[in-house]
């Protein structure tokens, strides 16, 4: 792992520590409070703050996860080189696309 990837992983870890906590607490709070899916969508639709939070969350995850996955694959398999790096860029793109799509869907519902 280069120093640049290391720094990117550590910085996004800080973002994720905050974002995952907010995400989980919100889920538990909403479910235990008895909110229906309709109630939740009514709160998230058109909520720019909600969208901004999840955009940051998804981007941080899309940077963080492939860096870690790359290290795991390098340690546990013989996979090395440019093909691995390109595959990890692909994983990052998939995480970002699916995550941003989901966040936008809940925002625009």
């Amino acid at each position, binding site marked *: *792992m*280069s*120093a640049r990837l290391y720094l990117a992983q550590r910085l996004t870890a800080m973002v994720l520590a905050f974002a995952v906590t907010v995400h989980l607490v919100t889920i538990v709070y909403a479910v235990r409070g008895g909110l229906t899916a309709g109630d939740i969508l009514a709160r998230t639709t058109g909520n720019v703050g909600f969208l901004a939070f999840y955009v940051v969350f998804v981007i941080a995850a899309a940077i963080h996860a492939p860096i870690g996955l790359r290290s795991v694959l*390098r340690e546990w398999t013989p996979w090395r080189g440019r093909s691995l790096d390109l595959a990890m860029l692909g994983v990052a793109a998939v995480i970002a696309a699916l995550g941003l799509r989901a966040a936008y869907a809940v925002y625009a519902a």
Partner: protein
Amino acid sequence: MSAAATAARADADGQLTVRVWRGAEHGGFQTFQVARRANQTILDVVTEIQREQDATLAYRYACRVGMCGSCAMVVNGRPRWTCRTRVARAEEGGQITLEPMRNMPVVKDLAVDMESFFEKWRDAKGFFEPGETPANDFAVVRPDSPERAQADAGVECINCGVCYSACDVVSWNPEYLGPAALNRAWTLVNDVRDRGQDARLDAVSGDAGCHSCHSHMSCTEFCPKALAPTYAIAGLKRVTARRVWKRGS
């Protein structure tokens, strides 16, 4: 020494059962019986086997007093200097299992080829770089300066390879520079006279470098000199990350 004399020197605890790795990458354990003696070290046991029971046993040692770092082996699963390990401390129920150090090719029996270990020392730029022109004057380094204290903390390494043998990351990634080379690089990063810092920080970054360390701390746990390569590696991570933050490379 005659068998009678050997028996006479054995203490009341009797015999040790010693399983010794024989062969190279492929091989098996051979069991020897060795008399227990007062203040006996693991190196004493190996030497007794080699001199009195099987002269074909290969192992390596030089100083016998913990200065040269050449007698390291895996003793009952733990990498250690055999000359400074007493049998009484390492044996388990009268049993001792001796294996060559891990993460290095086995030459024969208990002797490993340490070439890759030393090559990584060089690859990590673990040597003083004076720069193009000699300094005009002596550098003044205060003994209590933070840099000198950081260098002091790791400078007593004698290249025995115990940390390298203990390192999980080396076993997963044979290219990883390993704790000893990175520890040496860290002492030089803290040498204010050195003029090769950019090249050194480049050398310790990348997939073989300090950022691959998982901080398992096996190196720090097993270092016979009680050094802490984990903290040296953490220092390298800090300095290289700061460099990226400031310069973007």
